[in-house]
């Protein structure tokens, strides 16, 4: 009851002209940043952090929180319209969103993403309000062995992501993991696989790799199809499609709930974020579906899974940040900095001592989640029209320019742009050889989590007779081991079941 009272106070405190205006600004900026390939939510929050120096703590947090939520949603636009995830949290949206756009259903895909993001965002924030202290304690039970298995479990998602050729999917995933080992080793300290190129010491950045692997092959495809007038034709918009899509999305309560829970739980775990959640949710949607073969051909269920989960991560990420002072994702780390900058110390005391700030912040982000729907729809419609109107010969250099801006702004380093271009060309060649970008990026994301878990686990395990036994000594490890084995062999089980049922029919 006290929580509800505080929330009511938070809403009352939020509805002040200046705070509402800042929330609107945050949503607009977030949508634009998210929609531009390469400009991630992290970058957006980091770029606008200095702007908040002159704001009060609650105003600053409302602005940055709204920007964060809207950027995650905005990333779906470029994923759907250009097959280029705006943020790493939208990788999975390309799988079904882009085929929908190519079929002339881009607007329907954007609507689906919008309502799913609304659902996921609200779910995450409500769960944060209800379960924050309890879940924070569970998150603390995760040690290096658990993170190692969590990463391995994440890799098994590849069996669902790689359509047609699972073997090539796993090879692609391992290529991604191998790319993540370039540079200084996180524990051992050796400089690895740099071939004496100083620019590689810092490793392969996720954003340049993501932009390169997804965007450059698309630009090359545009060059190959340069004689075409547009990328694709948008079908005539049906009357009442907004309401119809809303109803159709809300009817899929099981899909929405599953993706929201996955997103929220992954968000709670420090170190895992929307980039993993959207792929796990997609994989789970494929596994749970009666028609898994339709995924990847342009069905709304694929977009629902990814867009619900990545927005649910936002609320999940606030759990360790606000209750323990442990930032789980890079964006949360910047928000942590914003809290410190305002003289606030994240942790359990924040809820008791500065409940006014926390609840105004949550109230602000809840309102922002609603407000981003109309603004996002207007923005998404304009973007869809723009992309379907301009000729491919102009779209190619424009997208190329955006990719350069996106990869440069990560660390204001021109070598990131070169890296993006090199990985882009490599991505195009690999795609032609049957290796998709999805598993490669998943490997790149999970590589550091698995490596740190493995090496730190081995160090902890030195007290045992065999250090590697530590990976089998904890109950939470076994949960992930069982899940990993199950997911790994799920396609085989499904194939057997299909053969058996086919045989029965005959």
């Amino acid at each position, binding site marked *: 009851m006290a929580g509800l009272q505080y929330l009511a106070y938070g809403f009352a405190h939020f509805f002040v002209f200046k705070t509402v205006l800042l929330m609107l600004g945050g949503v607009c900026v977030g949508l634009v940043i998210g929609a531009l390939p390469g400009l991630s939510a992290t970058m957006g929050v980091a770029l606008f952090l200095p702007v908040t120096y002159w704001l009060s703590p609650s105003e600053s947090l409302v602005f940055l929180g709204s920007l964060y939520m809207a950027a995650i949603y905005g990333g779906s636009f470029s994923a759907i319209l250009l097959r280029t995830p705006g943020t790493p949290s939208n990788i999975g949206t390309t799988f079904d969103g882009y085929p929908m756009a190519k079929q002339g259903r881009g607007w329907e895909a954007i609507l689906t993403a919008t309502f799913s993001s609304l659902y996921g965002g609200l779910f995450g924030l409500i769960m944060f309000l209800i379960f924050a202290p309890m879940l924070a304690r569970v998150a603390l039970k995760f040690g290096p062995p658990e993170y190692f298995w969590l990463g391995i479990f994440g890799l098994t998602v590849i069996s669902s992501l790689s359509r047609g050729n699972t073997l090539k999917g796993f090879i692609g995933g391992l*290529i991604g993991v191998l790319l993540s080992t370039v540079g200084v080793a996180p524990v*051992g*300290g050796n400089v690895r696989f740099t071939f004496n190129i100083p620019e590689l010491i810092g490793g392969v950045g996720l954003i340049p790799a993501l932009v390169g692997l997804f965007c450059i092959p698309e630009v090359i495809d545009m060059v190959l199809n340069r004689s075409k007038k547009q990328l694709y034709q948008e079908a005539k918009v049906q009357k009442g499609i907004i309401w119809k899509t809303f109803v159709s999305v809300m009817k899929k309560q099981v899909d929405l709930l599953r993706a929201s829970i996955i997103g929220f739980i992954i968000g709670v775990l420090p170190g895992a974020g929307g980039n993993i959640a959207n792929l796990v949710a997609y994989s789970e949607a494929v596994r749970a579906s009666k028609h898994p073969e339709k995924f990847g051909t342009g069905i709304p269920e694929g977009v629902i899974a990814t867009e619900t989960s990545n927005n649910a991560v936002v609320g999940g990420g606030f759990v360790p940040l606000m209750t323990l002072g442990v930032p789980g994702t890079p964006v949360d780390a910047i928000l942590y900095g914003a809290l410190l900058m305002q003289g606030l110390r994240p942790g359990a005391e924040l809820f008791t001592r500065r409940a006014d700030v926390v609840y105004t912040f949550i109230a602000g982000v809840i309102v922002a989640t609603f407000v981003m729907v109309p603004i996002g729809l207007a923005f998404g419609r304009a973007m869809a029209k723009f992309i379907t109107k301009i000729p491919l010969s*102009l779209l190619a250099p424009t997208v190329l320019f955006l990719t350069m801006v996106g990869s440069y702004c990560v660390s204001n380093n021109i070598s990131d742009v070169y890296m993006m271009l090199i990985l882009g060309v490599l991505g195009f060649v690999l795609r032609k050889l049957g290796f998709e970008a999805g598993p490669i990026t998943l490997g790149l994301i999970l590589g550091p989590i698995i490596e740190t878990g493995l090496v730190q686990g081995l160090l902890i395990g030195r007290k045992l007779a065999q250090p590697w036994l530590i990976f089998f000594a904890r109950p939470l490890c076994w949960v992930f081991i069982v899940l990993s084995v199950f997911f790994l062999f799920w396609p085989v089980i499904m194939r057997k079941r299909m053969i058996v049922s086919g045989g029965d029919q005959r």
Partner: protein
Amino acid sequence: MMVDVATATVILILSAVLFNQTRNYNYLSAVFPRFVLGLLMILSIVLLIRAILLFRKRERTESNFIPLKDLFYVALTIVLSFLWVYVMDWVLGFLLGSIVFGIVIFAILAGKSLKLREFLLFSLGYSAIVFVFWYSLGKLLRVPLPRGLF
């Protein structure tokens, strides 16, 4: 399937070379790359065997080859992109470099069918986009963009 044979062989050789490099690293730095490279080698051997078996069965897959003319345009765009980054960084700077190279790529891709009016209109629109980014990033948010010589 010959493509798969070649791909698997290249991955196998690269993995072996990188595995050999890990001998120079300490245990904590080498343990994970060795684990990954070992798995990669096993999977590429599986790919190789499968490709050879399919090749023997004479199973044909659809060709992924790009016509020579298209390949020229792809190569030209890639070379121009690298040149764009280099010239932007060292000579022309962010604003001028992006406008010049963007318009050059646009003109090349549009080809002979491009009318002067369209060229001017699209170039102006593209330049406006670049200008908005240059102003908001460089001037408003104070991101240190490549300056070139000017």
